[in-house]
């Protein structure tokens, strides 16, 4: 064995963090160069450094664009990338099913229902028109989750009850959404864009409402990395190893549902990220959550950054919904994984 196992793990963690942060930094600056006004990599970088040095005061047009339009978007992409991926990794671990994603508890369907209902009924909250959509989305997500939770607990609170309850609640809300979409016609065109997920409308106003909760909830999850390892043993053996499985799972389901709701509320339903990123991270670094979860965060941020860059450049000047891009990259990648590693691969 030689070298200490724990020491080796810490080394691997440091290595993955350094690599992940460097690529993320490059992608981050790259995303600042993109848009109607062309900018080189170094121009974007110097504009960012200058404007940060001056505490947010802009002195030329490049700095204005970088600071007020592109920076908030890039930060949100990182926040949502981390949040959805962590939520997916945790759900896969506690439900012990590699095909589970963060939307399993019905939150995305609930959020879509909220948005469509509000648009259909023409509801705007007068004092805060800008926040109407995110707010109704968040409330819809929360409502769906509470229903799922209620159903699951009423049927015994087993893990499978959560999955089944989530599926039922999701289907119920989706049917309402479909009805609204059919009846609403033109009025709901905006809802479609939201449904596919997009960062186009992100500004400084919402950055902290996405980034701070997403990052802090993810960090709370990180603190439970050892418990997530124990849960891999299965419920009974996890209990015999000293973990209160029932209340731990409930806590994790609540945290990940909140995390998913926050991400979905502002940027819409971005598919596939929460499903695929945890798998990529597991293949790269194995299943020990102390290394896996930080890897998931970094891979999630990197992948969503790439998807957002592609969404803005592939059909320039038309911007595609980022959710469509994540699915487009996700599907062939996942198919490849299934064929290549399907037989040997487990959570």
């Amino acid at each position, binding site marked *: 064995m030689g070298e200490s196992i*724990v020491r080796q793990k810490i080394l691997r963690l440091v290595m993955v963090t350094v690599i992940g942060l460097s690529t993320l930094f490059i992608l981050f600056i790259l995303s600042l160069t993109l848009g109607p006004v062309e900018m080189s990599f170094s121009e974007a970088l110097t504009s960012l450094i200058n404007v940060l040095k001056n505490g947010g005061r802009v002195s030329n047009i490049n700095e204005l664009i970088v600071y007020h339009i592109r920076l908030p978007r890039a930060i949100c992409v990182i926040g949502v990338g981390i949040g959805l991926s962590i939520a997916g990794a945790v759900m896969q671990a506690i439900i012990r099913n590699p095909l589970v994603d963060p939307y399993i508890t019905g939150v995305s369907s609930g959020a879509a229902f909220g948005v469509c209902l509000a648009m259909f009924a023409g509801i705007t909250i007068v004092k805060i028109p800008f926040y109407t959509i995110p707010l109704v989305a968040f409330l819809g997500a929360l409502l769906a989750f509470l229903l799922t939770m209620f159903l699951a607990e009423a049927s015994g609170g087993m893990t499978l009850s959560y999955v089944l309850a989530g599926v039922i609640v999701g289907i119920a809300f989706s049917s309402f959404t479909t009805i609204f979409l059919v009846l609403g016609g033109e009025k709901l065109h905006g809802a479609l864009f939201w449904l596919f997920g997009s960062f186009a409308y992100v500004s400084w106003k919402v950055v902290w409402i996405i980034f701070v909760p997403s990052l802090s909830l993810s960090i709370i999850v990180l603190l439970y990395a050892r418990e997530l390892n124990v849960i891999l043993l*299965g419920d*009974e053996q996890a209990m015999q190893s*000293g973990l209160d499985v029932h209340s731990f799972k409930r806590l994790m389901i609540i945290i990940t549902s909140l995390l998913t709701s926050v991400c979905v509320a502002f940027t819409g339903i971005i598919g596939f990220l929460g499903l695929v990123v945890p798998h990529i991270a597991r293949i790269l670094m194995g*299943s020990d959550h102390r290394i896996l979860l930080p890897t998931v965060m970094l891979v999630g941020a990197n992948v969503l950054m790439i998807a957002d860059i592609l969404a803005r450049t592939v059909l320039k000047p038309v911007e595609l919904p980022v959710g469509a891009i994540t699915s487009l990259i996700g599907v062939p990648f996942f198919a490849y994984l299934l064929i290549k590693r399907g037989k040997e691969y*487990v959570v």
Partner: protein
Amino acid sequence: MLYEGAVIIKIEDVTFYYESVKVLDGITIEVQRGEFLGLIGPNGSGKTTLLRCISGVLKPRVGVIYVDGQRIDKLKLIEVAQICASVPTELSSEFNLTVSDFVFLGRYPYVKGIWWESKEDEQIVEEVLKTFRIHHLADRKLSEISSGEKQRALLAKAVAQKPKVMLVDEPSAHLDLKYKLEVMEYLKELSRRKITIIAASHDVNLLSKYCDRIIILNSGKIVSFGRPEEVITEELIRKVYGVEATVMRNGNETFVVPKRPLR
């Protein structure tokens, strides 16, 4: 060696139901510290359920279980895990952890800091990996090793938990003859070091050879409880298993040779 007076597990009149089916019926036992206790009985007689009650996973509505002097229903699972370690028949399913990751999970009840195990935890794990001769497999995935090696990894994890009591369900299920004996010898050795072993198995001969005392369960009741040579009789095998058998004795050892099932 046996009766030094220290009772490690005391079970008082425990009755357990799955839904409305009575699985354990008025079980009362005292287990001594360092005793090697065998549980035998036909399928569905309640062996595994009894082990699960002692490990705190199941909570009987009737009766009380004391482990190491404390009522088990008053203890948190993590406190029970510091006293009792369970060795299941097999892993509940395949997963992606390495052998050393898995054995490290045995230290879960003890790690105080967040995240990383201490030097001491690491020493314990390294020692246990060597004892069970799986240290060369430390970095291999659990899903890639043989079933005999898996069985040893399961035992290693339980021993890394530094328990006072080990609850072993079918210790010999997937093992060939030599490993079977090795595992039993190792459990015997643990019991000499004052770790109490409670092992449930279908292998009557193997348990008779190694156990200090044997409990025979049938339909959730204790049918007989005592030293192997006292309790294993032709009449008992006929009554409990419905099998006609010859019981042979050679000094201290008892063998059951089954003949035919009774109609």
